[in-house]
């Protein structure tokens, strides 16, 4: 890392991982204290930031727009949620070893696919692997046959719709519309205690730092260069002897795994996961975080996830009717006026006014016009 970037990363990391939790640990009444609520909210945003990083990897760098990332987020969240449900044990409302909703649905025996989730280790693996496998299979089928561009987006959107429909079914034994909730402990620690939440927050922040480093490593590696090349002209990459499908499949899988981790951390802090989190709308909302923050940069998605969700919290509390309008307007405004997002635009401005020092050749902001044709013209896309 270059010196300046390293210092920025360290400063942000220390602020998120050490300073905020430390301020939260201050005694009640201290003027500097960060409230439990705020810390929890930050923790939620951090999970979104991990998710956004994954989306940026596949969209910002490889140019593949997935409208189904809610599914991978949901798979991770449900995997963790299932373990947490089983951890409740017989302390539920019905005093039954089975989760309450199963008792309610007259399920007498734990379904087979629930059983492995008794193990914490299996759950931790599943959180990463299950979304990864689903993405790998789905990606294999789609990328192999060179489904790309709009086609891929639409297919992933259909995936989100199908997943939403499926998870809503009571027959799936995943809690139906109500999802999974009412968790009591996580790996033995009581979830309602501030200490556990603080720990979870720190874990989330560390995961975000880890995800950032992982993504940075990927995009700086030769493979990352190929990804950018695929984004700019897939056909040319193909003719150069690379297999775009393999690269895309790899990065799609990593992206889904990151989404899964984000989902798992989300469940612990928010305490509920429902199918409403994995449908078409939430999946496309995730895209706007990345677009607002700036795709093709690694800071952008983090900034976007924080900014958009903070705005959402603010608006839904004070002007609930306005939020959807603002969200829609954000899509329009970002696409039309700031295609590079906040961070991308800032970087461009710095490059123009800040001289050579700020010019960082490595993570190139996406070209708004990948087409070599003059403005207003277009390539004929399938």
């Amino acid at each position, binding site marked *: 890392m270059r010196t300046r970037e390293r210092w920025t990363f360290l400063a942000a990391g220390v602020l998120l991982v050490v300073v905020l939790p430390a301020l939260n640990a201050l005694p009640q009444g201290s003027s500097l204290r960060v409230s439990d609520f705020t810390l929890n909210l930050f923790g939620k945003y951090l999970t979104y930031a991990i998710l956004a990083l994954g989306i940026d990897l596949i969209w910002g760098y490889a140019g593949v727009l997935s409208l189904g990332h809610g599914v991978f987020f949901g798979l991770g969240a449900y995997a963790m949620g299932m373990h947490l449900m089983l951890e409740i044990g017989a302390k539920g409302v019905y005093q039954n070893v089975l989760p309450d909703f199963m008792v309610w649905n007259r399920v007498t025996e734990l379904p087979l696919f629930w059983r492995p989730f008794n193990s914490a280790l299996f759950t931790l693996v599943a959180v990463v692997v299950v979304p990864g496998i689903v993405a790998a299979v789905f990606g294999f*089928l789609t990328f192999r046959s060179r489904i790309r561009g709009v086609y891929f987006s*639409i297919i992933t959107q*259909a995936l989100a719709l199908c997943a939403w429909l499926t998870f809503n079914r009571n027959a799936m034994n995943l809690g139906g519309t109500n999802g999974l909730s009412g968790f009591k402990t996580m790996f033995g620690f009581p979830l309602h205690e501030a200490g556990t939440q603080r720990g979870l927050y720190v874990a989330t922040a560390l995961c975000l730092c880890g995800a950032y480093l992982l993504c940075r490593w990927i995009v700086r590696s030769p493979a990352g260069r190929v990804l950018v090349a695929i984004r700019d002209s897939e056909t040319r990459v193909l003719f150069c002897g690379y297999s775009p499908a393999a690269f895309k499949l790899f990065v799609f899988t990593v992206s889904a795994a990151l989404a899964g981790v984000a989902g798992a951390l989300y469940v612990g802090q928010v305490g509920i996961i429902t199918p409403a989190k994995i449908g078409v709308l939430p999946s496309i909302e995730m895209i706007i975080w990345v677009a607002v923050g700036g795709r093709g940069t690694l800071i952008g998605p983090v900034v976007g996830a924080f900014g958009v969700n903070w705005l959402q919290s603010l608006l839904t509390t004070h002007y609930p009717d306005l939020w959807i309008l603002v969200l*829609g307007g954000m899509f329009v405004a970002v696409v039309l006026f700031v295609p590079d997002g906040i961070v991308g635009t800032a970087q461009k401005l710095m490059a123009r006014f800040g001289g050579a020092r700020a010019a960082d050749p490595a993570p190139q902001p996406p070209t708004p016009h990948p087409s070599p044709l003059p403005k207003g*013209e277009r390539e004929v896309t399938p």
Partner: protein
Amino acid sequence: MRLGQATGHVPKEGLATRVFIRLLLALALLPGLTAPAAAQGAASLPAPEIVKAIAEVASNDAAVQEAAAVALGKTGDRTLLPLLEALREGSVYVRSLPGGKQETVIVGDKVNEGDKTLVPLFTAYGREPIRSADGKPLLADLSMLQEVPTGRSLRLVLRPLIDAFSGTTQLADPDWTVRQAAAVKMGNGGDAGALPTLTDALAKEKDRWVRYAIEEAIALIQLKSGSSAERVNAATRLGALGSGDALDRLREFANAADAPPALRQAAADAVKRVERWSLLTQTIQVMFQGVSLSSILLLMALGLAIIFGLMGVINMAHGELMALGAYATYVTQGWFQGHAPGFFGYYFLVALPLSFLVAGTAGFALERGVIRFLYGRPLETLLLTWGISLMIQQGLRLWFGAANVDVISPTWLSGGVPVMVGIQLPYNRLFIIGLATVAVAGMYLLLFKTDAGLRVRAVTQNRGMAACLGVRSRRVDALTFALGAGLAGIAGCALTQIGNVGPELGQNYIVDSFMVVVTGGVGKLLGTILAALGIGGLNKIIEPGLGAVFGKVAILVVVILFIQRRPSGLFAAKGRYADS
């Protein structure tokens, strides 16, 4: 004939008169309601045997009374219905006339005056008010009248008689659906007393579907309560009729050990025939539903496909443009209700072009306002149109409310046409199939038979070259987008006739129609049609087995597997422009 006598008081021609009589009858049925004076015209003097029976019905001898009631019922004279009903209610009395004669009367609601209880009197025949010399309704002291006893057995006799009257009335209804429903009800009731009525009705009935219902009802009744030979006959006929209603009972007979062998055989044969018939009807039913869903998908996908072909972009706001069309229909309907209720039936004819205009204008504004800046950036356009869709959706929610609004179908679109036994095709579905066909034909003519269509195809194939050759591609873009949006509006207008109208209207079908476009390929009319038929049909074939949810999942899997083979849809663009 009994029914003949009944209608003897009703001119055979003249629907209005019949309706009028029915109205009068309905009024007369209301207890305590004075029949209007006009009813006097309908009730002429009764025949002597009726007069005798009316007198006998008041007898203290239960047997005589019952025989008289049956005789009255058998006349089929509807003027006597009030008397039978009054008998059942126990409001028939006998009064002594000055000449020592006795008269059977019906009494109305009691009025207390001092310590006396007064009741208005009505004639037994026709339930007309009996008037005193000065023309005022006659009030009699209840204690001066002699009550006609109504025992349990008389009530039991009366019930089928009264039911037969109402059945007879309904079987003579001018509306064929009422006649059909009456026949079905009588058949399911299985009361042997209804047989003569049904036979009469059958002789006069001309509508084949009502005839069918009556025949089925007769056979059902005979199967239930006929003699052994009649049952065999009935079972065979039910088999020939393909009667689904009779299936359970036929099965019973086919499996009953104590039934005569001939009946068992006939019932078993009939079951086989009915089952074969119902398999056929079900297949046709599924096919029709498939075609119906396909035509809905086609209507929605058509506009989407044109825009997709032109710009390589899925217009995510398509569903909301449909919602705009649907709300335009809703507003039109409201206007007709408020300003021209007399022409309410025609509102839909106005709403159809109006919804095209509303959605088309919105589409035009959208293209001119924002989308034209984004040509060549399909993913960005996709996000932008999604943003627009959210804003339109929320706008509709704020303006019209989040709840669904009611759109009333015009009468000519409700109901259906029966085509086969057990199959009725709803008019609204047929209308949508017709609309989709017209829309496709119109698009074909527009795209392939006009100069404008030639330009659109030129721009779709090669924008740069078309522009070089003098096609004003920008104008083509805007107008084509408006056309696609207008088609969405028409689809939305059509959807009001079969589903809920709410701000989320567009979301329900939109992913399906995306799949149609993706499967069909870019800008190919034929591809879109085939994909719509395929996905719609497959959906309805899979659905019964897997349920709606897993049916959708299965469709996604099929589509993914399908585009493994054909990544750019059914009909991919070929040649040097096929790939970027």
